[in-house]
């Protein structure tokens, strides 16, 4: 029977199934300082150990300052959380990419760059945007603190099998339309709860043409569509990405992995519970004007009139944002520009910003901030130049932080 990529990965990780409750094996577990302390404490109280310390990797990335990361943390609660992560990693034998380590950074940027994320694998982290890793053909999702403890103790999770949704995007992206515009257009179409209970697979010509970083942005924001996880079938671009990553398979293992990864894409006749289609040729740059990502329209549109939509949430959102019905999007005054977060802080994102701002200055009425997704940047050929360029344009560049 034809299978979707999700079903193939699910079946390959199914340890046991009973009364609709499935035990799924977890290949990679990423932890950070905010959602892990109680999980480690739970293990200690129950006298349990970490079953596979070598499959868990830790990085402090949530509750840390974005300036002067080489200095001791001045906020006592943040300092305690980071120190607790260090102690827990030491006690349970877990690898930590600490502040100052060139491999550290936002957990969802670090994982793929180190080759920890791999096609066909299951990846979890106590953070909803873990869905990012699905860009590489893995099944990746966020979990709660009790589940972090569950994975540490058993290397598995209890799950109810989710439904499947196919989002098919055809057409060509114009120069000013990015993968983030595509995912916002999808959210605008299906709503912020449109993906509830589903794992979404993104497919079609437009998705194939995206870079790995673009696919990461797409899968990252799957959470904003209410879905559990998003994924893109691995292809030659994916395989090329993992060649020679520090922890990706080497030699014979590379060949074996490659032949297994090539079998992952959904079978041509596989059935999804829900199918959604989008034509990328119709998508213009998207602007979210309200208080949730479903309140979105394109750059040439106007703010909607609540009178015509009958949604009390829209009236409240417009009041909060200080916007009025029928105002043109291009007439909205900008206060702040932020470039960062686990959605858009990768080196490729910064490179396109650098190209855009070259020879221009930040307007004196606008505050601009850039928070790169990881520290490795300084070591990359050519990267120093454009970071300097960003700095000289009046934008405030800060150290790494997950937001």
């Amino acid at each position, binding site marked *: 029977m034809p299978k979707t990529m999700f079903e193939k990965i699910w079946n390959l990780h199914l340890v046991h199934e009973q009364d609709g409750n499935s035990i799924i*094996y977890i290949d990679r577990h990423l932890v950070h300082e905010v959602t892990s*302390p109680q999980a480690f404490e739970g293990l200690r109280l129950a006298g349990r150990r970490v079953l596979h310390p070598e499959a868990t990797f830790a990085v402090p990335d949530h509750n840390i300052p974005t300036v002067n990361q080489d200095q001791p943390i001045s906020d006592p609660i943040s300092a305690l959380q980071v120190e607790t992560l260090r102690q827990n990693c030491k006690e349970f034998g877990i690898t930590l990419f600490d502040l100052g380590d060139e491999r550290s950074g936002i957990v969802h940027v670090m994982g793929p760059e180190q080759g920890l994320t791999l096609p066909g694998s299951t990846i979890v982290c106590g953070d909803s945007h873990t869905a990012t890793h699905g860009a590489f053909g893995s099944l990746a999702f966020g979990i709660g603190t009790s589940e972090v403890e569950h994975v540490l103790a*058993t290397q598995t999770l209890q799950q109810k099998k989710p439904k499947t949704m196919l989002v098919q995007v055809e057409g060509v992206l114009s120069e000013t339309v990015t993968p983030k515009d595509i995912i916002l257009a999808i959210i605008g179409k299906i709503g912020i709860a449109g993906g509830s209970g589903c794992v979404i697979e993104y497919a079609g010509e437009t998705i194939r043409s995206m870079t790995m970083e673009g696919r990461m942005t797409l899968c990252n924001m799957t959470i904003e569509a209410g879905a559990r996880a998003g994924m893109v079938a691995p292809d030659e671009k994916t395989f090329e990405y993992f060649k020679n990553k520090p922890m990706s398979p080497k030699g014979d293992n590379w060949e074996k992995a490659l032949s297994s990864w090539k079998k992952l894409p959904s079978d041509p006749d596989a059935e999804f519970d829900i199918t959604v289609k989008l034509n990328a040729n119709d998508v213009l740059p998207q602007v979210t004007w309200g208080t949730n990502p479903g309140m979105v329209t394109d750059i040439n549109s106007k703010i909607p009139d609540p009178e015509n939509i009958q949604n009390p949430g829209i009236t409240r959102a417009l009041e909060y944002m200080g916007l009025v019905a029928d105002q043109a999007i291009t007439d909205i005054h900008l206060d702040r520009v932020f470039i960062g977060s686990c959605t858009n802080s990768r080196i490729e994102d910064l490179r396109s910003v650098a190209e855009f701002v070259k020879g221009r200055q930040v307007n004196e009425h606008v505050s601009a901030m850039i928070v790169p997704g990881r520290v490795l940047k300084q070591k990359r050929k050519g990267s120093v130049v454009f970071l300097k360029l960003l700095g000289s344009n009046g934008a405030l560049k800060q150290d790494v932080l997950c937001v």
Partner: protein
Amino acid sequence: MEAFNTLSGITVPFDKINVDTDQIIPKQFLKKIERTGFGIHLFHDWRYIDDEGTKSNSEFILNYPRYQGSQILLTGDNFGCGSSREHAPWALQDYGFKCIISSRFADIFFNNCRKNGILAVVLQAEEVQALFKEVEANEGCLLTVDLPQQTVCSPGGNKFSFEIDSFAKDCLLEGLDDIGWTLQFEDKIQDYERQARSQKPWLFFDL
């Protein structure tokens, strides 16, 4: 996780409806790095008359001398609504409660109780009212909650049955939290690993 079988305990008749998790454990106490030690902050805003929590409010029912050492919380409809914070059952448990009786619980809170070994018993509203009356009228009244029989009995002769799904009942009776439940299948996890190590060796760093 501690097993729950049969419990006879001092019962606090806490007659309030729609008690949300921020009332159970206010947000300012969520910054801790432990899951223990939340008991002193339980119902903070009602239990203390100062923000620091040093002066106890003698008019709050939990502070009455007759309810000290209580293990059963008898409470009003829709208990545990609001934020999903797992700190709420952690605080109730740390204080000493092992069982909560109400006519309705919020979904997430109900599941979080089970994950932490607290028995949340749902009775009919009129049954809860009958228990309120009896417990308030009789100092030292011990209710008996029998999980195997699925009953709540009082010294005055009230005996009420409650429903519980078999998975939750087994977990509580055996003292199995979700980890405990999964570890029953440890041999299957090992079988899986043996197979996966030969088929997907690149995923195992210890090979």
